[in-house]
């Protein structure tokens, strides 16, 4: 019995179509918070074979042991219908895990770069990665309570973004806010895929 999702045999349950979005950003920018605000979050163990190249110098605490090959990751799942599910992957932020990014980015619908205005430099690497790989992305500025208020244009300039890359303010703890970020991303991807069409994206929250 052949199993394909568009022509599933009657006795086989239909396999859902799956899509993924990456959530990138520096350590502590709120990636896991964002994913858990909108989806059921699930732990994922990886046991990666690190090449010499990927074992770099860790400049960030939070991962114990430089020689470990275990990477703990989270992912979130949003099931829209029985036949469509969206997966959100928080990318391991440390440079030594870049070898995992290729796999995560491959086939991704797009990416959210979560920026913390107190440490904007932390998301340079993510922006650079997605620009080089042609992965569509939006920058979501996580508005921490004690962070100075930022204008999205300031962030755009600071990150030297292409003019068409959307920059939105968000609260990674807030479901509606995160929903707005994802809607902005998918609307942007649609516009890139079909520039002639106009898509209704969510209004940007006032900065």
């Amino acid at each position: 019995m052949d199993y394909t999702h568009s022509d599933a045999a009657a006795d086989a349950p239909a396999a859902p179509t799956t899509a993924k979005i990456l959530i990138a950003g520096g350590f502590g920018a709120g990636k896991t918070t964002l994913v858990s605000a909108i989806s059921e979050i699930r732990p994922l163990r990886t046991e990666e074979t690190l090449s010499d190249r990927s074992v770099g110098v860790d400049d960030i605490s939070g991962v114990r042991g430089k020689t470990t090959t275990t990477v703990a990751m989270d992912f979130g799942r949003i099931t829209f219908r029985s036949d469509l599910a969206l997966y959100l992957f928080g990318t391991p932020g440390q440079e030594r895990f870049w070898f995992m990014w290729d796999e995560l980015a491959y086939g991704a619908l797009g990416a959210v770069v979560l920026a913390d205005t107190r440490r904007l430099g932390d998301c340079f690497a993510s922006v650079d990665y997605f620009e080089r790989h042609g992965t569509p992305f939006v920058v979501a500025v996580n508005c921490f309570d004690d962070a100075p208020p930022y204008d999205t244009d300031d962030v755009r300039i600071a990150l030297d973004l292409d003019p068409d890359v959307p920059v939105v303010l968000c609260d990674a703890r807030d479901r509606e806010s995160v929903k707005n970020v994802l809607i902005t991303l998918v609307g942007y991807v649609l516009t890139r895929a079909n520039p002639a069409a106009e898509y209704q994206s969510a209004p940007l929250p006032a900065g």
Partner: protein
Amino acid sequence: MIVPNEQWLDREAGPVVRPYAVTKGRTVAADGTSVGLIDVVLAVVDAQPPAGVRLSPEHRQILAQCRRPITVVDLASDIDLPVGVVRVLLSDLSEYGIVRIQGAIRGPVTNERLLRDVLDGLHAL
């Protein structure tokens, strides 16, 4: 330095079997292909492994989880095995013809219908 009174119990002691021991040391599939993280897996109804093939307990554990369609990452999370290990074991099961793997999209996503469906789904949340 050895600390005599320090004891590691249960999970703190780490896995009893090194993760890739269950794949006999293999970190990539025999045919060199890679199973994607959000590829969907489904057991083939009533299929049996080829004659002479003995499934490992982990193979059986995976097989039991894919009676319904399930993604590779959900499967790995459910059975708490590293995703890399699950992928190698899945490629075995696929090679034996007892599971089918439906690949998710590779490369850039430009499928307008899919994108619109995702957008509509997000709006409806």
